[in-house]
């Protein structure tokens, strides 16, 4: 404790407080989105001593400053724009465009029927085919999706959860046809079912069989697809559903704990699969809170892996993550403002040490992005990388009294919440009891009330509004995609070997009823052009369907 500083500080606080009568602050109390206090000024007093133990060096436990020693000095974060719409052909064209424009990895968005394991001709698919992403009904569509894209040289992230095993199998099968072997494939499947129950809603099966499929994927990839990130434990959607930054960290890491426990229970050694776990976070509006959040998450996870799971391999303790700028922060009003929002959010993610980044496009409050809008989003990342200089040193904001204190505060609050989830029996139990959902909904409602009372300003929406015409030129996906997919399905069913399909599905059903790893059976079914719906319906028969029973 520096007595001189302490003395100066007390005097300064007194003097400033006296001047408040004449020069009041904008608010009585300043709090960030997580309801953590933001002080007027931070000083060395706010930072704990022992730099090595608490903060550490990049690439070393507890990884506060980053998971690699050189970070962006070695290689920039992967610029990975989530994309996919309508048909496989159109999506393929968009991917090749983005790769030409300098994007360094692919990220596939699937439509809702695909995410929920239904073919495009399923009754519930009416009106939904190709709307929020690409429609994939079978390996044939997957082949079109990656036409002329060498899968052994491009890394692909697929945002797919409940039927992740099937889409991964299709990806592997396409690579095989290109002549690329499984062990060369790199990429990620989101494969995080717990957050689906909590915040995203594209679940199929109940928790227990879903966890089984997830650990099957862990085991299969550990052996055959070693470069593949088998899960992207996600906080993005939890945040989008309305949670605070602290809840985002706590619930995500709690989900992570559940997956690690499940894998260990399935007989895997923690160091065999943990290095391939990855995470996915949101980058939201409060700049410094977000930077602190990323650092806090890294440190907390490292401690959890080391102390709770006794991981020995440092790679098991590294929280590697993808970030997406917060979609729910985009406004439909004055959409060009979104470019600025995204720039700030992207900067926070970079200063937070993200491994890969998706920046939203300005028109995404209302539609999937146009080519022009998505190019600006990509340029935003490139400007940060190449022009701003922030990538030239590792973790530049370290040592900021504010950032270090906020990192500590977020870590502490998140650890407490993880403890609460533990007390409820873990993530799965907490979800069944509706705990996470309630916490998130309360935060969401609180946020909305703040916006409506103008306590929280959203520029262009509740302040600084203008009279503006409706936006023009938004991307539209019409119903013809649905019709085209239905025709493709008809043709597929007429031209494939239906006997082989029936056999494969039968084998899959047996496997699902037993305890063997389902991946080989799914691969076999995929190779003979069984459709996604047929495969998932077979699994539905065995596993049942999940129904969300918790309300508000």
């Amino acid at each position, binding site marked *: 404790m520096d007595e001189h500083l302490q003395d100066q500080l007390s005097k300064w606080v007194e003097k400033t407080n006296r001047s408040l009568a004449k020069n009041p602050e904008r608010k009585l109390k300043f709090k960030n989105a997580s309801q953590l206090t933001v002080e007027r000024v931070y000083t060395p007093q706010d930072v704990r001593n022992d730099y090595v133990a608490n903060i550490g060096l990049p690439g070393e436990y507890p990884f506060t400053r980053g998971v690699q020693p050189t970070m962006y000095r070695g290689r920039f974060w992967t610029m990975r724009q989530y994309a996919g719409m309508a048909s496989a052909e159109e999506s393929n064209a968009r991917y090749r465009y983005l790769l030409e424009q300098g994007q360094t990895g692919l990220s596939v968005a699937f439509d809702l029927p695909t995410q929920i394991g239904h073919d495009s001709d399923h009754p519930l698919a009416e009106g939904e085919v190709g709307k929020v992403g690409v429609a994939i009904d079978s390996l044939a569509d997957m082949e079109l999706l990656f036409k002329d894209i060498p899968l052994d040289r491009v890394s692909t992230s697929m945002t797919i959860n409940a039927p992740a095993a099937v889409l991964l199998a299709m990806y592997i099968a396409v690579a095989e046809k290109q002549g690329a072997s499984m062990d060369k494939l790199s990429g990620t499947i989101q494969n995080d079912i717990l957050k689906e129950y909590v915040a995203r809603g594209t679940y199929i099966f109940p928790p227990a069989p879903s966890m089984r499929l997830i650990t099957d994927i862990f085991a299969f990839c550990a052996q055959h697809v070693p470069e593949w990130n088998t899960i992207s434990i996600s906080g993005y959607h939890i945040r989008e559903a309305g949670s605070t930054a602290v809840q985002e960290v706590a619930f995500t890491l709690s989900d992570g704990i559940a997956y690690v426990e499940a894998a260990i229970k399935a007989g895997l050694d923690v160091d065999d699969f943990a290095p391939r776990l990855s995470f996915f976070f949101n980058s939201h509006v409060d700049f410094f809170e977000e930077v602190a959040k990323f650092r806090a998450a890294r440190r907390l996870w490292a401690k959890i892996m080391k102390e709770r799971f006794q991981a020995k391999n440092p790679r098991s303790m590294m929280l590697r993550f993808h970030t997406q700028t917060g979609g729910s922060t985009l406004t439909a009003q004055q959409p060009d403002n979104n470019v600025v929002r995204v720039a700030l959010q992207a900067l926070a993610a970079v200063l937070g040490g993200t491994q890969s980044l998706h920046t939203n496009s300005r028109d995404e409050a209302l539609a999937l992005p146009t080519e022009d809008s998505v190019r600006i989003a990509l340029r935003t990342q490139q400007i940060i990388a190449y022009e701003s200089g922030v990538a030239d040193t590792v973790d530049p904001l370290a040592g900021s009294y504010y950032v270090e204190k906020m990192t500590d505060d977020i870590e502490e609050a998140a650890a407490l919440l993880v403890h609460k989830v533990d007390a409820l029996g873990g993530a799965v139990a907490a979800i069944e*009891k509706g705990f996470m959902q309630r916490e998130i909904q309360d935060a969401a409602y609180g946020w909305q009330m703040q916006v409506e009372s103008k306590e929280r300003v959203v520029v262009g929406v509740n302040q600084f509004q203008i009279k503006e015409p409706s936006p023009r030129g938004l991307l539209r996906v019409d119903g013809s995609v649905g019709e085209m997919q239905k025709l493709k399905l008809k043709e597929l069913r007429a031209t494939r070997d239906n006997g082989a399909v029936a056999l494969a599905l039968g084998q899959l059903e047996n496997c699902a009823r037993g305890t063997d790893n389902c991946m080989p059976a799914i691969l076999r079914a995929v190779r003979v052009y069984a459709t996604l719906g047929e495969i998932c319906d077979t699994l539905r028969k065995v596993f049942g369907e999940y*129904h*969300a*029973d918790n*309300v*508000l």
Partner: protein
Amino acid sequence: MLSIDKLSERFLSGETRALAQSISLVEDSAKEAAKFLRLLGVPKALPRVIGVTGPPGAGKSTLTARLALSLLDKGEKVALLLIDPSSPFTGGAILGDRIRMHDLAGRKEVFIRSLSSRGSLGGLSAAAIRVLRLLEYGDFSTIILETVGTGQAETDVVEAVDTVVVVAVPGLGDDIQAMKAGIMEIADIFVVNKADRDGAERTARQIEAMLGLQEEKRRLPVPVLTTVATTGQGISEVLQALDRHTAYLTTSQELTVRRVKRRQKELYAYVKDLLVDDFFAWAKEAGREVAPNSPQGAAEIYSLAEQLIAEYYAERTG
């Protein structure tokens, strides 16, 4: 404005929407309910009425849905009345039990209605009792009433139904001392749900032990069953217990006793409503404010009340 004559015709013809609108009618107004029920005459046959109650999180809705599903499969026509608490501040409510009835979606022989407790602190509002009365005319063989599980005045429910099912969860046994004594007495059937959890058997035995202490008061022993409502395990045993209870009620005349009690309660409720309405109507006519003069003094409230009532009687009888 809906003509209640037309509505009663449509109701008696079995139209679903008319049933729904009639429920709203009787729920909203005791006077309208009285008029409407008079038009309907006497119900052809009285359905079996089952009350499902218990603390929040016990799985009452899931259990109710399962019971209903089994009854439907047996060819019964079922009505479900799901009650959720209203906000004490705004009077509004989020009625969230229906979301658990997904297995019943599209089944034509079941009618599901969500009701707000409309201010009554747990237990049943007079409105809910009127709705129950109306459902007697709906050709249902069984009505299941699921109440607010606040643990407060759930004892109300025993006066409105034929059979009371109390649902508990494992671990509750440890808090059983803390449970309101009333809840142990009102149960005709005890169900320990989520029986796949640790401690289910222990909780069931603890409940049996506590029930044993009351044996003399009861004429029929209360079965303690275990279920896993989400999978359907134990549901057929619950249905059997329900049937046994119904049989007992019928043969022992206990059913008649309970139903007369129920009518008694409805009578009291309606009399109270009429009196209260008339009192406030008088107050309005007479320009008398029914409000205290100052925040202090309990005694003043009592004198004020007595004074107002005296003036009211005088006006009405004078």
